[in-house]
């Protein structure tokens, strides 16, 4: 558990999501990429806020303008989002920056960049099968055998979610307390696969992100299906930490720090999924501003 906490803290600067996984002093060859490096900077040097006003513009898709400049992705593409709500939320992230740009607080922007650039060239099918594979190591499915307080907590808090998802999707998942983990039946995987197929590429990117953050497919479904709030999902994901915190005390600069970061990222991921799956009925609106 401590290891997980440390890993999460380290991850702050070595974030898995592009573009902040660039190592220090990476040699960037071409001229066009010079611009992207200048805009997003490296992991530790900070970029000053170089604009005053943030606005959105619509040309089919929605764009973000920083003063007169159009926002681009780290890969050099024009930054576009499919609907106004997401555009406004991203614009707000840029608008909220003070003197320096803190990209690690701009989670929606990061998710959009990942979806637009797709630097690792992943297909939807790959993401779906990765998600299904994750089910085998789902946090909710792994039960401890001791201490009894934690065993009971897991039973009281996780069983209801397990019941919910099994009922909602008419599947069997089960849990296990041995190192091999639960045996997930094939029918269960097929059911989830069908369901995940209905997601588009952007939503799937968001969902994958949420699953990675919460370390649980079950909890992610609970959140996306609006059965759980973000706060609830995060508490359930961190159940063992919460148990230890109750026993041994809270350390603000580790526990709260981790919790807020996890909440922020998970909330962003959930919003991203919901906004990306919205039907394009929103494009009927013409911008007045």
């Amino acid at each position, binding site marked *: 558990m401590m290891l997980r906490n440390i890993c999460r803290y380290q991850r702050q600067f070595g974030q898995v999501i592009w573009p902040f996984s660039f190592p220090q002093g990476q040699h960037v060859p071409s001229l066009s990429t010079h611009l992207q490096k200048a805009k997003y900077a490296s992991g530790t040097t900070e970029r000053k806020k170089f604009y005053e006003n943030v606005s959105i513009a619509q040309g089919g898709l929605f764009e973000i303008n920083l003063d007169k400049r159009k926002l681009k992705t780290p890969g050099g593409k024009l930054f576009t989002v499919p609907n106004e709500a997401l555009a406004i939320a991203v*614009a*707000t992230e840029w*608008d909220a920056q003070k003197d320096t740009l803190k990209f690690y607080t701009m989670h929606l922007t990061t998710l959009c960049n990942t979806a637009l650039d797709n630097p690792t060239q992943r297909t939807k099918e790959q993401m779906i099968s990765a998600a299904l594979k994750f089910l085998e190591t789902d946090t909710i499915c792994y039960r401890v055998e001791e201490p009894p307080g934690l065993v009971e907590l897991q039973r009281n808090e996780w069983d209801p979610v397990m019941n919910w998802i099994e009922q909602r999707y008419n599947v069997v998942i089960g849990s296990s307390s041995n190192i091999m983990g639960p045996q997930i039946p094939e029918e269960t995987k097929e059911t989830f696969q069908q369901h995940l197929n209905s997601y588009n590429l952007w939503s799937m990117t968001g969902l994958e992100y949420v699953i990675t953050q919460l370390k649980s497919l079950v909890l992610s479904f609970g959140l996306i299906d609006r059965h759980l709030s*973000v*706060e609830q999902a995060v508490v359930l994901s961190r159940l063992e930490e919460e148990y230890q915190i109750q026993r041994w005390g809270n350390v603000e600069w580790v526990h709260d*720090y981790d919790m*807020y970061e996890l*909440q922020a990222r998970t*909330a962003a991921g959930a*919003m991203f999924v919901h906004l990306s799956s919205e039907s394009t009925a929103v494009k009927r609106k013409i911008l007045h501003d």
Partner: protein
Amino acid sequence: MAAVTSPLRACRGILKELRIAKGSDYRNTLVYKHVLEQFRRNQFCRARMDALHAARTYLCLLTSTRMHLRLHERYHGRGDRALEEVAGLVGLRLPTQPGGKGWET
């Protein structure tokens, strides 16, 4: 954080976060107008629950980002010490190299 169960509380929470982030100017922002419009629009049962969940999620995003940043600044803001300072901690000094280090561009 107390559970935010009513739309009114969620709305107020979001507006408060916007005010913290933007200062007195927050009413002029796109996001303010968008949030108010969303809250006015969603009256029907199913859409209302979905909208409430969305509102709570956004409120969580704003609050958590702010709290995370605050803790970050408080505990991790200082960054690394300069190399000279680190050397000085153990009583050493860095050598001077007038020509610059060979590998620096």
